[in-house]
């Protein structure tokens, strides 16, 4: 479950988004970057550009030596050939497939030719690894938000991705599940060691899951730096609002013993 630490995700894109121009460049190594910003600042669009679901007007997107997009060389790799794990806000589990079938779907898309039975066995292996074996034959509708999130991650990892893209991973969960999922994601991200981009509106997500933060405002990079630095000296009004949790900067207060404190990176 470990990624090639030498492959960096480097992104430099420009895209007309209607109200403004998205103009951002960033590099993500084997680390996790939280992409934050006001609603409609272009965070998700940036994620989609990396995925290949939105075509930038200009720029370059590459992961290590794999060029995904290059406007000058006229390269545009289709999404299915980019090997990126994408977890949307609602997890994107196929509702007509059971948990194990969802994971097997990812295996069937891989380069390895496998029989249906082999795929099922391997998919079961993935579910077991995430402690989800008992839920294998459930449909997504019969699962809790936290369980769905785990299955979605197991499925994403079964496709052997080279980078991880998370769009608001805890936004559609209730408060209790949020804490649990956050802890689980933090552990997974750390053990995977893949370049990870996390779009979030939740300071707790950023604090628990990311080591760096990039603030995007109206399509421009307003700030980018270590999470600890940005939190200590917020460079923009948005950043200071974003991190203005009940706890003053620098003092870590964990009101709930099972909260995400122990998984904190810094």
């Amino acid at each position, binding site marked *: 479950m470990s990624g090639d630490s030498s492959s960096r995700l480097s992104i430099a894109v420009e895209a007309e988004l209607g109200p403004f121009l998205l103009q951002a460049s960033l590099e993500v190594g084997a680390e996790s970057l939280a992409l934050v910003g006001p609603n409609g600042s272009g965070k998700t669009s940036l994620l989609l550009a990396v995925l290949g*679901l939105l075509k930038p007007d200009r720029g370059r997107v590459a992961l290590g030596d794999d060029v995904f997009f290059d406007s000058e060389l006229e390269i545009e790799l289709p999404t299915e050939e980019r090997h990126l794990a*994408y*977890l949307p806000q609602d997890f994107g589990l196929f*509702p007509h497939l059971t948990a194990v079938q969802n994971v097997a779907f990812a295996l069937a898309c891989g380069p390895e030719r496998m029989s249906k039975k082999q795929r099922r066995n391997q998919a079961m292996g993935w579910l077991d690894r995430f402690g989800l074996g008992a839920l294998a034959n459930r449909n997504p509708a019969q699962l809790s938000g936290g369980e769905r999130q785990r299955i979605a991650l197991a499925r994403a990892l079964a496709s052997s991705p080279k980078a991880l893209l998370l769009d608001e991973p805890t936004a559609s969960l209730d408060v209790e599940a949020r804490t649990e999922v956050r802890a689980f994601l933090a552990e997974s991200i750390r053990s995977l060691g893949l370049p990870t981009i996390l779009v979030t509106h939740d300071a707790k997500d950023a604090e628990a899951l990311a080591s760096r933060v990039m603030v995007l405002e109206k399509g421009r990079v307003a700030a980018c730096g270590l999470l600890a630095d940005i939190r200590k000296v917020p460079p923009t009004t948005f950043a200071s609002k974003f991190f203005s949790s009940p706890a003053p900067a620098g003092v870590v207060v964990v009101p709930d013993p099972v909260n995400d404190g122990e998984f904190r990176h810094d």
Partner: protein
Amino acid sequence: MIGRFLSRTTSRNLYGFVMVGLGGILLLFLVLPFVALLLDGGPDSILRGLGCALTWPAMRLSLGTSLISVGLVVLGGTPLAWWLARSRWRSARWLEILLQLPVVIPPAVGGIALLLAFGRRGLFGGVLERLGWSPAFSSVAVVMAQVFVSAPFYMQAAVQAFGRLDRNLLAVGRSLGASPPRLFFQVALPLARPWLIGGAAMTWARALGEFGATLMFAGNMTGKTQTLPLAIYTALELDIHTAQALSLLLVAFAFALLLFLRRFNRNLELTRRPASS
């Protein structure tokens, strides 16, 4: 005080009377023809009507041609709808409107249009004839007329079904490495299937009931182009009870189809609750 109370009750009574009255009149008007269709003449005359020489050739032809029509519509309509539903091309929206046109134009107009296009002296009829094929006034023409008038029902259902698919699901599918055919056959098609089946059922019903375009473009020849609706038209000149019997056949079919769709939709609601919490 009492006067006000009285006036309030009278106005409430009046309200109930008007609402029930208006609704009831329409209900009666809609139901009475079916009652007459079922009861007039009694079962003996209906059975005798079914024994008419027109019945079985027309029924065979109707079933055969309508099933072929549904098959063709589904076969071509599914890829077309998949493309239309995802196309960002502006002309695609115009194409969708154009595809709905056969629903709102009189079927007779469709028949004339088909005749002008594929008839012997039609726009493309000459080309077809030189290839040794002249579809007008044949069983093929029956299928063509049915496809023309019934395809919009499937198209509308299919475009909506594909358009309603969660775009995130398709995005995730692609990010997992699914090729376009895998995405279509294993994600889009199974998720859209209930609505596709509903659309196909409506298309079948419409194809089975097709009359105007068939009469214009295919004619009314027993065993060759005379479908059930045309047989009803012919039977009317011979004996109204034969026409009645044939009509009941179509009503029974339509009723069964509606029952099926209702059940199907109910099961759908039970098994497919939305997957969001």
